[in-house]
């Protein structure tokens, strides 16, 4: 669909790999002693996390372990203590929109798009946060090439002018990923991005993550272990607000504590 002469803006070459790709000076995410307390209940309890550019890090753990809360804290939605360092910049304590401007993008566990705008307009707005004020006042004439490309990548070209509110659950999730792409986020925080997708759609999404993750810092929350096995380059297991285990997929799967609290003693094979 993309014309050959069009450069790929959003998709880098190469694949993510464990520990990240360390060519040049890589970007990184460094979380130190992150703590979130709600009315006396500690949801995130001193979490440390290191993710490097090019790594596809999965965050797994029991329901209520605090995974979403970590993302909430990193994007400024809930107050937290500790430190979250994105390639040298402390992002904790800033406002939501400032954090987004620093290149941190996220999706939501319940897909959330602008229901009254078309798919195309959703992407156009996502692409526009960095536009100068005057540019905002002009009509959205010629679309961003990045928007065109994102539309193609997420496979919604045919629905470009459809109202986003009428998309199916999974389509909205793709749209959200597309919005992250055009937003040019360097740090992607994805909360269960494949929930509600069919097997082959999961595979497509996985491939997509692999492609876009190669030059980004990517943190994915997911419960589908088949998917984790297939696409994770490294995994962090969270339980009761603390990091329980960290390593490659094989390593954490073999960890008896992970089996006990999360996988089940007899890991369900491909449920």
């Amino acid at each position, binding site marked *: 669909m993309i014309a050959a002469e069009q450069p790929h803006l959003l998709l880098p070459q190469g694949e993510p790999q464990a520990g990240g790709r360390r060519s040049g000076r890589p970007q990184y995410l460094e979380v130190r002693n992150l703590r979130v307390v709600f009315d006396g209940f500690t949801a995130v309890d001193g979490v440390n996390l290191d993710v490097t550019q090019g790594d596809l890090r999965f965050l797994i753990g029991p329901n209520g372990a605090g995974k979403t809360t970590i993302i*909430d804290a990193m994007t400024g939605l809930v107050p937290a203590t500790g430190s979250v360092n994105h390639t040298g910049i402390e992002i904790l304590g800033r406002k939501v929109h400032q954090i987004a401007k620093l290149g941190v993008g996220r999706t*939501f*566990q*319940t897909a*959330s798009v602008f229901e009254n705008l078309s798919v195309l307009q959703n992407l156009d707005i996502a692409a526009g946060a960095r536009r100068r004020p005057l540019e905002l006042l002009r009509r959205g004439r010629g679309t961003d090439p990045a928007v065109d490309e994102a539309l193609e990548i997420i496979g919604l070209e045919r629905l470009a002018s459809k109202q986003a509110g009428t998309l199916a659950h999974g389509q909205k999730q793709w749209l959200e990923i597309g919005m992250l792409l055009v937003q040019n986020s360097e740090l992607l925080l994805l909360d269960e991005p494949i929930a509600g997708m069919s097997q082959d759609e999961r595979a497509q999404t996985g491939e997509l993550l692999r492609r876009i993750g190669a030059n980004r810092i990517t943190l994915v929350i997911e419960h589908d272990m088949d998917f984790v096995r297939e696409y994770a380059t490294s995994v962090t297991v969270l339980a009761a607000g603390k990091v329980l285990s960290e390593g490659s997929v094989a390593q954490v799967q073999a960890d008896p504590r992970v089996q006990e609290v999360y996988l089940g003693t007899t890991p369900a094979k491909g449920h």
Partner: protein
Amino acid sequence: MELLIGQMFAGLSLGSVLLLAALGLSLTFGQMGVINMAHGEFIMAGAYTAFVVQQTLGSAGASLLVSLPAAFLVGGTMGLILEELLLKRMYHRPLDTLLVTFGVSLILQQVARDIFGAPSVDVRVPAWLQGNVELLGAPIPLTRLFILALALTCLAALALLLKATPLGRRIRAVVVNRDLAESSGISSRRTDQLTFFVGSGLAGIAGVAVTLIGSTSPYLGPNYIVDAFLVVVAGGIGQIKGAAIAAFALGVLQSVFEFSTTASIGKVLILAAIVIFLQVRPQGIFTLKTRSLA
């Protein structure tokens, strides 16, 4: 001293009137999200109910007691009709309900004028509420005491209804998610109707109360509506106890401001106080936290 006590009581008493006017709103606005500008006219309907009952029964004492349930029914029924004819199709556009019900309030004022005439009518205060008791030398009007007691009773009844009864749970559930409530086996229509009936019925009761201290005229509603909404907003939407605290706080504050400045400046100061307060607590005294965008 005498004056101080008088003023303290004036504040409480003003608060109790505000609370009565706002209680129903904290149901229909706070729980259901309907911004019912005709609530003031439901109060007016309650006041005229007291008038009609008094004309029919003659005795002011008995008629006051009959008026309370009667006005509850009248206000409630008007609310039901409004809900059925208009609001039921508007639950997903709360701001629009404000304008629609503003239209309804215009119509109801004119209807009242056409039925009862423009001048205010006389609802007599029963003999047992005339006069006052002395508290350390300050006269405490019996009518005001009655209204205070009435407001507290309604408050307790409503709080109990919401917190401790199945209907209360339903009311709170339906407003969050009608489809989910329906498919959980709850008749959202029935619940909406009941909620609106009770909320509007409370306006009727407030109407009876205000006949004891003010005028009963077609233009009674607008006197209360803005203040009543402010109470609900300052209290935190959907928060009965917030509304109660806000009502009494505003009542006392207003009587302090009014005492130390003038009634007009007092009104402006009250508003300034609310705006400043919302800077500190944008969602009112009590808020329900919810997570992220869920």
